[in-house]
Every structure is written in C-alpha cells, then in structure tokens.
C-alpha cells in the first residue's frame, strides 16, 4: 500500500514538473517574441547566429540529403518497376523529399547538430554567470542572447530543408538516370507535372518553419533552464535531442493530417 502511494506521488510530481516546464517554456517563448523588436534593431547579431546554426550545419545536411535521395531512388525503382512505371521514379523521389523527408530529416539533424550546440552554449553561459552579468549591466539576456538565436533558427531551417530536398533530388537523379538508366526526360517531366507548388512545396516549407520554431525554442529553453552544473548542462543537451525529435515527429503528424484534409 505504502509502495503504491509512493509510486503515485512520484508519478504526480513528475507530471506536475512536466506541466511546470511546459509553462516555463511557453513563458520564455512569449518573452522572446516581445523582445524580438529590440534584437531586430541589431540584426547583425541574428546574422551571426544564422552563420553558426545554419551555415555550419550545411555539410551534415547536404551529405545526408545526397544519400537519402540515392536510397530513395534505389528503393523506389525496385517497387515501381514491378508495376512497369519506373518513369514515375522522379515524382516519387521529389514528393517524398519535398513533403516529408526534407523538413523532417533536416529538423532531426538540426536538433542534433545546432540544437545541442545552442543548449550547451546557453547552459554554460548561465553556469559561468555570463547571463547574470548581462542582467546586472541592465542588458536583457533574452533580447541579446535568446532572441537572435531563435530567429536565426527560424530563418535557417526552411532554407536548410529546401537545400536538403534539392540535393536529395540530385542524388535520386544520379542513381535513377545515369546508373539505372531511366529516361532523363521522363524523370524530370513527370516530376514537373505532378509536384504542386502550393500543396507540396509550400506545405513543406511551412512544416520546416514550424519545426524551426519548435527545435530552436526547445534548445534555447533547455539551455536557459539547465541547472548551472556540468551534469545539468549534459542532461539538458540530451533532453534537447530527445524532446526536439519527438516534437518534430509529433508535429509532423498533426500538420500532415491538416494539410491532407484541407
């Protein structure tokens, strides 16, 4: 009886803690939004962060995209040729990338590459009293540190996802056309005819913007909320990857179901 009681109270405490953190995260999100004007006035700071989060993630994103595109073409061809429609390989690769894999895989890689870096940086800035020092100098750390990183992530994510899809399609092309021997004209014209600007491309970009907001905000919150110790920062970094990945996959389902029903 006593054990059950203890288990229940631990469960309850865990739940309350999760709700509390959700609220704290939402509060930080709100403060970031209202501090954005202040940080936009010095847009140089945001540009600098776009370099660190976006440009520095390019290599891992582009290389992954290339391989994902090649694998898609190989796997797609296997199945399509059974039905005698191997020319549709271009459409398959493009749709899979533009609608789903581009935004989702980019967001997952972004969480691992840039998200962890953001969390560790903010967590260590907190641990070494840099954020406190800023506050004591009457400079808001949210406007100076958090908001520029947030907007950098939101700007970088759709661009990275777009590049992912482009390079992925290129990888698919290289496997399908020169390697397997699918007709190049069919590959491109089928793609052109069947990929819709609004329903496929814009929806994909919209997804990646949402993922950008979610991944960057989670990384920033975990860093800002991390206990100022080595263990605290390491746990926060792990949580960034876990929470971001789950959030991306969950949001992807929600967004896709809305996009299909509309």
């Amino acid at each position, binding site marked *: 009886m006593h054990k059950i009681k203890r288990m229940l109270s631990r469960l309850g405490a865990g739940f309350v803690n999760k709700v509390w953190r959700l609220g704290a995260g939402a509060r930080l999100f709100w403060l970031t939004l209202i501090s954005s004007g202040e940080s936009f006035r010095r847009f140089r700071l945001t540009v600098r962060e776009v370099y660190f989060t976006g440009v520095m993630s390019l290599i891992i994103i582009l290389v992954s995209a290339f391989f994902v595109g090649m694998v898609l073409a190989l796997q797609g061809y296997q199945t399509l040729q059974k039905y005698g429609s191997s020319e549709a390989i271009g459409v398959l690769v493009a749709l899979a990338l533009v609608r789903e894999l581009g935004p989702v895989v980019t967001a997952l890689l972004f969480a691992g590459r840039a998200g962890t870096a953001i969390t560790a940086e903010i967590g260590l*800035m907190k641990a*070494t*009293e*840099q954020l*406190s*020092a*800023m*506050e*004591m*100098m*009457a*400079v*808001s750390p949210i406007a*100076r540190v958090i908001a520029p990183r947030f907007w950098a992530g939101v700007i970088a994510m759709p661009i990275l996802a777009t590049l992912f899809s482009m390079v992925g399609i290129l990888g698919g092309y290289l496997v399908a056309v020169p390697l397997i021997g699918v007709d190049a004209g069919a590959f491109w014209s089928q793609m052109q005819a069947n990929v819709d600007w609004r329903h496929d491309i814009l929806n994909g970009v919209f997804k990646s913007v949402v993922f950008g907001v979610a991944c960057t905000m989670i990384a920033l919150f975990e860093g800002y909320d991390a206990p100022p110790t080595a263990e605290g920062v390491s746990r926060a970094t792990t949580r960034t990857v876990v929470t971001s990945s789950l959030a991306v996959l969950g949001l992807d389902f929600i967004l896709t179901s809305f996009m299909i029903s509309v």
Partner: protein
Amino acid sequence: MANAIVEIKDLSFGYKGRLLHQGINMTFPRGKVVAIMGGSGSGKTTLLRLIGGQLKPSKGSVLVDGEVVHTQNRDGIYRLRRKMGMLFQQGALFTDLSVYENVAFPMREHTDLTESMIRDLVLMKLNAVGLRGAHALMPTELSGGMARRVSLARAIALDPSIIMYDEPFAGLDPISMAVICDLIRSLNDALGATSIIVTHDVEETFQFADYIYFVANGVVAAEGTPDDLRQSSLPFVHQFVYGEKDGPVPFHYAAPDYQHSLLRGAR
C-alpha cells in the same frame, strides 16, 4: 542616513523554505569601501543580488539612491542597475568576445558614443587595471587574476556610483590579490564611488575597508571599523578574524550522535 547610497532595512530573505536572512540592517555611505564578511554559505552573495534587484526580499527592503529596489518594474530596475557595476566571482567575461569588446559591451549597449570615443574609453579603463596591452586577447587566454581585472574594467565602464565585488580575492595568487586590493581602493577613490565587497578574506579586507559587517546565521553578528573588530570580544568575530578552527561556528555540520550513528550500521 541621508548620505547613504545603499540601505538595507529589516531585510528577510528565504529560499526553498530555508530562511537565509532574518532582519538585516546595513548602511553603505557614499564614497566608502564597505565589506560584508561571513562564512561560506552565509548568504553574502545573495545580499548583492538583492541590492541588484535579481532577487526579491520576503520582508523589508533595499534602497538604492533613495529608491526601493524590489517594487520597481523592469525598466526601473534596469535604470537603477546602470548606477551599479558588479564584479562576479569568476569574472563572468563573455567568452565569445575579446577583452576589448567585453569592456566596450556596456558602452555599446547603453550609449551612442562614436567608435573612436569608445576606443579611447576602453583603453583608458584597461589602462586603469594595467591591461591595455591585453586588449586583443580572448578571455580564455587570460589568467584568473587578469580575467578578474578585465571584469573590473568592464564593471567600471560606465563610471558607476556603486561597485559591487563578489569574492574578489577567491582563488588568486598573492601578487594578483595585492593588485586587486590596491585597485578596489584606488578606483573607489578616483571614481568617487561606493564599493561593496563580499568576501571572507580577513587579512586583505581589514587593510583597506572603511567599515565591515559580519553576517552569521542570517543576522548582522557584528559591525564596525577594522580596528573595532580586531579588538572585539565577541566569540564569533574572534574566531573568524583569527581563523580558529572551532568556536561558536562548529567544525562539524549538524549531525546525530557519533557513537549512535556508527552503532546503527550501514545507514
């Protein structure tokens, strides 16, 4: 006191159910160097955070230049903080900025000075702490004592009327310690500022402080000039000033009976 720039009135502060301060009264007169001393964990640093408005008192108030700190909104607190400079224990330099940019940071944030004026001011501040030659270095290339001095240059960047020091001597070699001691006194007098120093280094502090508050068990246990305190007959002050191992402050953290604990086995 009309001449006081900072006043702490009947201040109580609790944290996670533990009462850290219970009815503290302190006065910091303009132009003086005042030290707050006490053992580790006696809430000295918390007092600085209360003065800076980073924490709110549970009772009582802190007045800076005649204004209550904790009732101010964010803009009000930021306005008060522009009168303050703070030196953090580990320096708290921004690791992504050079020494020069660290000192220029408050000027860039709060003034519209031209680049050439900022340059002159930064070099003057760095010269005051003897580190003009180190302006191009990054914080990771500095020794502990140098980082503390750069941080001091940054704290006085906007000529504050209050300079707060959080454990300025912790972990420094004797030479750096002497340098910091000298800087605290000379900068205070040159800027006409008021210095508040939180520390537990008796020897250094007694050399240059004008007035000292001893904090223990959440109250001001003793106060006075260094000479008063050296002659104090209060057991706590005597133990602290002369660094005796045992006394009113026990060597052992509160624990149940020793024999009893051992006999209970592995618990």
